[in-house]
């Protein structure tokens, strides 16, 4: 077993540290097992989300470029497990590289602040790091409890499809599929993997988002007879768990669909006991039976 030294600046975003400590724990656990070193630098700000550009494009690009400039100072790429942060940095880097007319003012501001204007750092999603940089062979070496018999539906999150113009939009979602298959899970499809979970719409109309986005996928996944819905996106995880609660009060409908994060499943396959860590108490969907099944049957 040989490990190349993989090192990144860790950018967990705000949702995971503030609302999903079990997901952050799983991510750190998995990356530690895979000998991926995470450097944490204290001077990064909010990404900020790409939707900020609707209100002020320059503000979005300048602040996002500032964080990329700080990463460039350290000579490292950013690793983020947040789909929203990933989209913001990926697109900011694209504008910096391909639209000098739009990037000029933001880079001038960075120069005034004494920051590098040569932005060399890239952003990588957790899924990409595990699949591409670490690799499936290395991932397999750490599996002690294969997820045998686990049937999952997947929800990639819209921004995992973000790619360069003309690029392969399914490249990263396929990486997630391969990771799940390597862990031993069976992926069950319903064709609605790309539907929005409703997160962005919820910032304007929460009920509409629950009824016209989240519930469509929940209903479809429920009909698949899977053990759980798995996502690599913190916003999708929060949304699908919360929406199930909201649907009980809105329509008296129960879906009782367990929703888990990809990192949790990898961590479990690597030997982490989610019940000992009380992960089930941090979820808002009924994940305990899934965890019990995996802890009992795994390996």
């Amino acid at each position, binding site marked *: 077993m040989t490990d190349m030294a993989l090192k990144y600046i*860790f*950018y*967990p*975003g*705000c949702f995971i*540290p*503030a*609302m999903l*400590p*079990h997901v*952050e*724990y799983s991510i*750190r656990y998995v990356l530690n097992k895979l000998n991926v070193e995470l450097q*944490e*630098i*204290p*001077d*990064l*700000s*909010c*990404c*900020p989300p790409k*939707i*900020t550009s*609707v*209100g*002020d494009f*320059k*503000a979005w690009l*300048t*602040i996002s470029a*500032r964080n990329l400039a700080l990463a460039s100072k350290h000579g490292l790429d950013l690793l983020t497990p947040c789909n929203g942060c990933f989209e913001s940095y990926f697109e900011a880097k694209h504008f910096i590289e*391909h*639209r*000098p*007319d739009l990037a000029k003012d933001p880079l001038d*501001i960075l120069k*005034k*602040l004494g920051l590098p204007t040569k932005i060399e750092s890239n952003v990588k999603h957790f899924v990409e790091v595990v699949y591409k940089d670490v690799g499936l062979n290395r991932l397999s070496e750490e599996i002690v409890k294969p997820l045998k018999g686990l049937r999952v539906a997947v929800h990639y999150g819209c921004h995992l499809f973000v790619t*360069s*113009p*003309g690029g392969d939009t399914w490249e990263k979602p396929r990486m997630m599929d391969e990771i799940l298959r390597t862990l031993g899970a069976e992926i069950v499809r319903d064709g609605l993997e790309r539907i929005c979970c409703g997160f962005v719409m919820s*910032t*304007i109309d929460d009920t509409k988002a629950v009824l016209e986005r989240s519930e469509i996928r929940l209903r479809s996944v429920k009909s698949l007879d899977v053990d759980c819905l798995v996502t690599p996106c913190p916003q999708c995880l929060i949304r699908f768990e919360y929406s199930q609660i909201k649907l009980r009060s809105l329509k008296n409908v129960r879906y009782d669909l367990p929703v888990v994060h990809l990192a949790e499943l990898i961590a479990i396959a690597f030997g982490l006991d989610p019940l000992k*860590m009380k992960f089930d108490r*941090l979820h808002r969907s009924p994940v305990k039976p899934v965890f019990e099944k995996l802890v009992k049957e795994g390996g």
Partner: protein
Amino acid sequence: MVPKDVPEKLGEMVVEVYSTGPKRYILTLSSYDKIREAAKILFDEGFRISTITTLDRGFYFELLYHFVKKNVIASIKILVPKGESKVPSITPIIPGANWLEREVRDLFGIEFVDHPEPRRVVLPPDWKDEPPLRKPVAPELPETYANYFMSLATKAALASLSGLAKRRRKQMGLPEVVTPVHGSKDVIDEVKKISKELKIDRKVPIGGK
């Protein structure tokens, strides 16, 4: 930089190229006022104008001039600020663009400068309303996001940890402070400087509406 199917001379004014299929290219010009020059280059090389399509993006218009030569489609993209709403006409070079530009003018209210015949083609002559496909200019900051921008301008939009989140993190042995969820004064000051430079602080209703 430009694909071999389109004139190399376009490369000087194109900032982005991508392909959406075989022989199908979208080329973005560095500035909308270069459209006539770009059209001339293509026309001189045997491309004909197929159509012009327009999207209202709120703050700006996105115009696509679709040029065709045999099985190659090269679409020239320009972004036109809504405040300007003026584009050099390509009709003086390509007469076939006459009606296409007039249609865009009627429906979106974009003026094609130096168009030889700027009269209505789609709308009735007595049309008094706004151009039917032109949306209102989006406000500088959508109201829904005003709070977020206020947070960005005043505290770098750094999220904070609730007492419960702090306790849970501690129980799990997670770091007490994790970027970008903390309140480092240096970060806030630097993002505030950016906000000031871009006048974000003047756009948000800090201290009430």
